């Protein structure tokens, strides 16, 4: 048997093609992987691992809930307690949309060593709902008429405060004075004065105070901190962060309960320090729209964005704040602005520089918000060497004029249009989030974080950390110092909007620089913008 030359040509002609295609595929893949690993090696970023906290051992922590509204219910779910009504709603939602995993996620959530023992809510329907949902013969739940009764009862180790803003500090201070642990929602306080009082109370108390900025648990944010610390972005001169919402829920026009009446709501107690106005359902359910109880965009949403960045950059209180805006999208009787721009100045702050010493210093934090448009403007950190988009995902683009990456850009190893780093702990996890407001929070990484690709409620992680510190000691990631910075910065923004002028901070005295004839807290509590009295102007 002999093959002719022709036979071999016909028979083996495919071999060189096979070799060429194989070689091309392998070289391509290996080459681009090498290029990528060269960039990654240069960046040397360590993606954050899930936080490990010591277990919450011993007797269960006895928790009292103060405020069982929308947020109060969410916080209870994070503690492992969901109402039947919510479970039923989520069951239906999952039937409609198989990607809705809210109930499944809740059921799979790790059980915390806590016992709900008391409820304090000025609305009878909510208090009853709490008792009906969570009270059992073995563990009866008590309703307390006032927060003082609950805190003084000796039956609660810790309280969760999810009230309107004007109640945050008084209740927190009362609890801390009784050495009862506190988890308080943001903003930590409603006035400048309260912020100092609460700080003193926290410092003198044996109890642990945690402020509800749950995003401090988000993995992408701790990774972002590593990225910034390693000088990946170079000197960051501008941060842009935004609120973009365009729905009723997002504009705080929450549902008004049909059973709400002066008989079912303890109106006097709701008002507390607020001006005495007659019973008003609108004020009760939509309190975020009035300065008397809430703090508008600057206290409600800017605080999230500020603290998100403060946890990445640790930039502290701005040296000055200017804000402007108005009520442009929801002229419905509210007196907090629904469009606001806040510029915070940090003239001495730097994230490090790749250029000549002294050339770069200082940063502006720009918060831009509207409740009349839902277009997703991402949070971006703009550095001389790179730009970072920050949310549940992280993306970094090199800057075309970067000093640090000049060689790699020159060599074609980096391209300003192509991200050099992407961190997505949720990669490939299909996801469904029901409402526009939830989507808003999810996009910002305020709702969910991912551990090994599994979606975990960041509020759950935040509360778990608080409970662990109660039992084992240690430090919470958002305690009194972080809360102090958040509250003062938010109040500066609110004051600036109300007064229409720049508000300055003196880091030496740790006080706002006084403005003649102005009592800051009087301005903050006043409804709407502050009318300059003629004698002050003249």
């Amino acid at each position: 048997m002999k093959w002719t030359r022709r036979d071999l040509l016909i028979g083996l002609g495919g071999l060189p093609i096979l070799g060429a295609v194989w070689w091309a595929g392998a070289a391509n893949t290996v080459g681009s992987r090498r290029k990528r690993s060269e960039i990654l090696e240069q960046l040397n970023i360590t993606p954050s691992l899930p936080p490990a906290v010591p277990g919450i051992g011993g007797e269960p922590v006895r928790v009292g809930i103060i405020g069982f509204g929308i947020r109060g219910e969410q916080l209870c779910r994070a503690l492992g307690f969901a109402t039947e009504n919510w479970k039923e709603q989520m069951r239906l939602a999952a039937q409609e949309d198989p990607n809705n995993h809210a109930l499944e996620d809740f059921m799979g959530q790790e059980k915390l060593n806590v016992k709900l023992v008391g409820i304090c809510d000025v609305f009878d329907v909510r208090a009853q709902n709490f008792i009906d949902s969570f009270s059992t013969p073995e563990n009866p739940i008590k309703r307390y008429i006032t927060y003082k009764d609950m805190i003084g009862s000796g039956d609660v180790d810790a309280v969760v405060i999810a009230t309107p803003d004007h109640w945050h500090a008084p209740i927190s201070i009362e609890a801390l004075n009784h050495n009862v642990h506190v988890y308080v929602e943001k903003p930590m306080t409603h006035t400048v004065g309260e912020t100092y009082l609460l700080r003193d109370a926290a410092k003198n108390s044996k109890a642990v105070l945690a402020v509800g900025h749950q995003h401090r648990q988000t993995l992408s944010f701790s990774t972002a901190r590593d990225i910034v610390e390693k000088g990946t972005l170079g000197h960051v001169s501008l941060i842009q962060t935004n609120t973009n919402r365009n729905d009723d829920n997002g504009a705080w026009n929450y549902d008004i309960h049909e059973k709400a009446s002066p008989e079912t709501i303890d109106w006097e107690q709701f008002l507390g320090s607020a001006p005495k106005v007659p019973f008003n359902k609108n004020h009760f359910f939509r309190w975020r729209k009035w300065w008397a109880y809430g703090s508008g965009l600057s206290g409600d949403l800017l605080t999230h964005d500020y603290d998100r960045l403060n946890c990445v950059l640790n930039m502290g209180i701005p040296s000055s704040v200017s804000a402007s805006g108005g009520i442009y999208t929801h002229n419905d009787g509210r007196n907090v602005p629904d469009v606001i721009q806040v510029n915070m100045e940090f003239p001495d702050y730097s994230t490090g520089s790749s250029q000549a010493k002294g050339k770069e210093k200082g940063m502006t934090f720009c918060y831009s918000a509207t409740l009349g448009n839902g277009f997703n403007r991402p949070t971006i950190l703009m550095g001389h060497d790179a730009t970072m988009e920050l949310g549940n995902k992280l993306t970094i683009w090199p800057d075309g004029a970067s000093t640090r990456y000049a060689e790699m850009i020159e060599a074609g190893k980096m391209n300003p249009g192509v991200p050099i780093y992407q961190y997505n702990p949720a990669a490939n996890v299909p996801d469904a989030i029901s409402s526009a407001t939830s989507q808003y929070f999810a996009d910002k990484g305020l709702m969910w974080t991912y551990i090994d690709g599994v979606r975990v409620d960041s509020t759950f992680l935040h509360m778990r950390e608080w409970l662990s510190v109660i039992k084992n000691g240690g430090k919470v990631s958002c305690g009194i110092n972080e809360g102090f910075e958040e509250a003062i910065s938010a109040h500066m923004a609110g004051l600036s909007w109300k007064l229409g002028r720049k508000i300055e901070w003196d880091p030496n005295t740790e006080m706002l620089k006084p403005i003649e004839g102005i009592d800051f807290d009087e301005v903050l509590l006043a409804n709407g913008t502050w009318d300059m009295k003629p004698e002050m102007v003249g």
Partner: protein
Amino acid sequence: MDLNQNKLKVSVTLLRILIGWHFLFEGVVKLYNPEWTSFGYLATAQGPFKWFFTALVGDATIGWVDTLNIVALMVVGITFILGIFERVGAFVGMGLLALYFFAHPPFPGLTQLNVEGSYWFVNKNLIELVACLVIYQLPTGQYFGLEHLRKNKLTKMQEQ
């Protein structure tokens, strides 16, 4: 007639090699990239067989699915380019393409993910599938490929 036969053989051989080229390259690129996974493609599956594809993405199965996909791609690529056992290759290729087609079918009303053109029921996966059918019906390995040597060997042995 004979001349037409020849033209047909050349055309089908060319088709066979190009399809093989395409499959082999896809397989090799995945083989050399340990981070590649079909997870995203399967997890975002659409249409009537969504349940089947999303069932494949479990921790226990996804590794097997990825490996089998690479092996199958390369089997089609190698058999088509070398021109041997091409009917086996064509069969495997049709199976693979049918899976790709039904995971993201271009049916009206379904979201089209990661597609670069406009399709209505027929897309490139389906066309390549039918092209594999042509290869199956008209083997050309003997005309250009290893099959020629195998066949030749047999006939030469018979002659002896």
